[in-house]
């Protein structure tokens, strides 16, 4: 899914023959419009081979037999590890560009993104206010993830990382209130239809403790995967820091 985003950004017109089905979800994928113009595949080898690709970009975490079967079928496979930091994201962007034979375009874009990042983030600040990420089902995002790195770059401390809570862990509502973070970052709705998991984000206690000014809604598509969209997330996080916690 994350490599779909990068490939959609970098590939020459007509170069891609298929993307994964999640890449077409407008709430998860910033490039869903482009993705919808292409056939979607799930992790089924038959479907992938049916598109007769020369190259498959595969998540390094995909089951080993998938890559082995694809290779036996004569398809080149490039297995890539998901990026967990902005810097890794740029490296991955170059990798994908290289694999697609568009190394120059990749390097140019990566350099440009790095320049923009430096401009958005500016000088490091002395006081780093505390932010907490709270997602559906009361899960929070800790160290070793892209959101954690973007928070750090934007001058925030991440509650879950400070408490060593693991990459993706439940944070009880009570504990969240007691920690009293300066900013609460919520997911956007993942569907037009409701779920209990997301109804929790509108709990009365949260509405009372975190009025509009202390919350930021950041759709997962902006900071889950590496890509140019991370800069939008960074801009919003830096703006929120200046608004809320930036004053010494």
């Amino acid at each position, binding site marked *: 899914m994350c490599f779909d985003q990068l490939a959609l950004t970098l590939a020459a017109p007509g170069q891609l023959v298929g993307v994964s089905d999640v890449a077409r979800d407008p709430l998860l994928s910033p490039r869903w419009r482009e993705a919808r113009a292409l056939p979607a595949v799930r992790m089924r080898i038959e479907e992938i081979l049916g598109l007769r690709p020369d190259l498959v970009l595969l998540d390094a975490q995909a089951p080993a037999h998938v890559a082995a079967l694809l290779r036996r079928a004569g398809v080149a496979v490039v297995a890539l590890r998901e990026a967990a930091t902005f810097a890794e994201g740029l490296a991955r962007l170059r990798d994908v560009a290289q694999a697609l034979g568009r190394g120059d375009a990749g390097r140019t874009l990566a350099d440009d993104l790095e320049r923009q990042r430096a401009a958005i983030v500016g000088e490091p600040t002395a006081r780093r206010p505390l932010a907490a990420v709270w997602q559906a089902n009361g899960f929070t995002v800790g160290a070793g993830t892209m959101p954690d790195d973007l928070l750090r770059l934007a001058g925030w401390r991440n509650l879950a990382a400070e408490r060593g809570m693991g990459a993706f862990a439940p944070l009880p509502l009570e504990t969240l209130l007691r920690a009293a973070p300066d900013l609460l970052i919520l997911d956007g709705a993942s569907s037009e239809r409701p*779920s209990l998991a997301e109804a929790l984000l509108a709990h009365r206690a949260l509405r009372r403790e975190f009025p509009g000014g202390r919350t930021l809604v950041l759709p997962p598509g902006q900071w889950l995967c590496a890509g140019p969209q991370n800069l939008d997330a960074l801009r919003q996080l830096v703006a929120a820091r200046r608004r809320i916690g930036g004053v010494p």
Partner: protein
Amino acid sequence: MSGAGRWWWLMLVVAALLALSIVVGPAGLSWRAAIADVLTGHDSVPALVVLEIRLPRALLGAVVGAALGMAGAAMQGLLRNPLAEPGVLGVSACAALGAVIAFYSGLVQLLPAVLPVAAMLGALLGTVALFVWAGRGATVTTLLLVGVAINALAGAATAFGLALSPNPYAFYEVMFWLMGSLADRSLDHVALALPCVVLGAIPLLAMRRGLDALSLGEETALALGIVPSRVARWVGLGTALAVGGAVAVSGVIGFVGLMAPHAVRPFVGYRPGATMLASAGAGAALTLAADVAVRLLPTGRELQLGVMTALLGAPFLGWLALRHRAGRAGGAAWL
């Protein structure tokens, strides 16, 4: 012990468990500050945790437990069957199906009150199906078989309905609806459930005398001026309203309605009417205790409340069945 003394004891136990439920939680609180802030209406974090998170959970434990306990006693009294219970016989599952349809279709976002109304309609449908299908004076076996069928059908329909939702989280919420939980509920949920449960309790309590008379046999009841079909209609309606209101906010919490009446029946002289009232108290106590237990158990994520009550209730159901077999001499153990 005198009659009045027993009622005081029951109320004391429920009150103590309510207090315990408010004390237990993941965030440590400075109680002096919390109590002072609650009393003065000061909007601090400790006050917020107590009033908006722990209080609703404790209140819901009592309200939902009382509704299930009362409904279980009413069904056992009406059907003259020790194994009758809204959870086991599928009434709760039908209520959950109603709630699921209302919630995931988006209707509840337009009007929150649709949630308990849909759950009550579901429970009513389940009750009617049970009465029509099993019929009057059904044997324990027939009633249980029909109940198992309704339960399985409603549970499967719930899972199917959740799988149809385009929301990626919806499917995993089948655990909440079929196993029940009181985690992260708010005062909004209390405001939804409480009126429905009270509304259901009115016909149930009004039929206390009718149930007492029915326990003596239908002819005796008729001689006393009690119309059995009228009692059945009102008890069915009251059960559906109370169970629907409870399930709409907590999901299916099984076995509370089974265990609570049996726990109190010896203390109230085996009269169905009085059992109903006492069973409401016992159901509240049982649910509160189970809800405290799931929060104290060292599980990674909090256990569903229905899992806890099933751990207690399923062996109890087996024990009841054994005793029933011994009483009727209908079958012997194989091994």
